[in-house]
């Protein structure tokens, strides 16, 4: 194996989170992005079918993850456990924030029809959303957005991986500014 690929393999093995292309490229400043990309592709191919782990593109980075077919056995042995499922309220709130970010609490409350403060506090605590900026309106409300851990727990490469609204059966345009002013 090419030495750069080996270096990347070692780093990805050592890290317990996805490493971005930028982080991986910093390991060897002389290599350059195209070489790192090529080495990642080679690694990915090498871990194709013959290994219990595979190299997965996730959360704007790369990470070694176990293959799905072993999930149950590993969990039964309690070497690792699946994370607890998110509640419907948490998923609703995440969906709204993912598509409307940056978005304030009032808008989330409005769309869900219920007070979402407690749910949002928990999501902040879990690191799935964060305050990204402040709004222009009265009191300059805190506006929230999703974080890399959000992509991580959903196994998404980036926000583009989310379904496009047109793909849903209930197609609905984003409200125009006129609607919001109502």
């Amino acid at each position, binding site marked *: 194996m090419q030495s750069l690929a080996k270096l990347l393999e070692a780093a990805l*093995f050592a*890290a*317990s*989170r996805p490493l971005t292309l930028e982080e991986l490229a910093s390991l060897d400043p002389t290599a350059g992005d195209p070489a790192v990309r090529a080495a990642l592709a080679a690694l990915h191919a090498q871990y194709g079918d013959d290994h219990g782990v595979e190299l*997965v593109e996730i959360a704007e980075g790369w*990470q*070694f*993850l*176990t*293959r*799905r077919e072993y*999930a149950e056995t*590993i969990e039964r042995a309690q*070497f*690792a*456990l*699946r*994370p*607890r*499922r*998110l509640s*419907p*309220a948490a*998923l*609703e709130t*995440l*969906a*709204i924030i*993912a*598509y409307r970010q940056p978005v304030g609490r009032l808008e989330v409350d*409005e*769309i*869900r*029809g*219920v*007070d979402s403060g407690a749910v949002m506090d928990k999501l902040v605590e879990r690191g799935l959303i964060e305050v990204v900026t402040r709004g222009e309106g009265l009191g300059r409300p805190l506006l929230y957005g999703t974080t890399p851990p959000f992509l*991580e*727990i*959903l*196994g*998404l490469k980036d926000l583009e991986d*989310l*379904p496009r*609204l047109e793909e*849903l*059966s*209930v*197609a*609905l345009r984003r409200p125009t500014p006129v*609607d919001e002013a*109502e």
Partner: protein
Amino acid sequence: MREQSGFVVELEKFSGPLDLLLHLIREDEVDITDLPIAKIADQFLSVINDLGLNQAADYLEMAARLLRIKAQMLLPRHLGDDEWEDPRAELVRRLLEYQQIRELVDWLGHAAALRAERFGRGYEAPPPDAPPAPLQIDLNDLLAAAERVIALIPEPMLHRVVPRPLDVEGATARIQALLAERETFGWSEAVGPQATLVDVLSTFIALLELAKRSSLTLSQPEPFGPMVIQRAIPREAA
């Protein structure tokens, strides 16, 4: 009046009034954009009444909104009136929007379940659930506990104005008499039987005074244990 056969709903299953409304609309298989508002409003009200969940402000607010729309729909309007705005429009818009969110929830839930089947390195067992909050009692329990504590207080001394001055001299004499008899004795003997608050205070001041004069020593062998009073070893005459 209403035709809901075997219609049982647990409100806890719904994440809010919009979720409940969507559920009712699906049950009735009605067109969301041409909402039979009177029917849906009645069903909504009966659900939140049946469940006695009148404290849920979000549900009540929606109930009020539905009734207002229902009333607006009943107002007569002129044929061909272009100015007429469907009072349901805003609610329909919100319902469609919420329906879209629910569809995304399904998608996100599925994605999370798939991701959960792959483990990364550095797994750490989740921390055990936090112990329950130390105080989980209702007002009645609290009042009962307070009553038990109050019952243990011998007399409501706090409300009484005590006209008697402290009898420090008397207490001093009593303690000196005890010292003459015995080398050590306890607080309860010093203060005497059926002591009043005044006795306690008098004795305490007398003890401190005598300790200052080196007639006795005060000690407490263990924290919160009874106080031991000991006759002081007479000092060599200076």
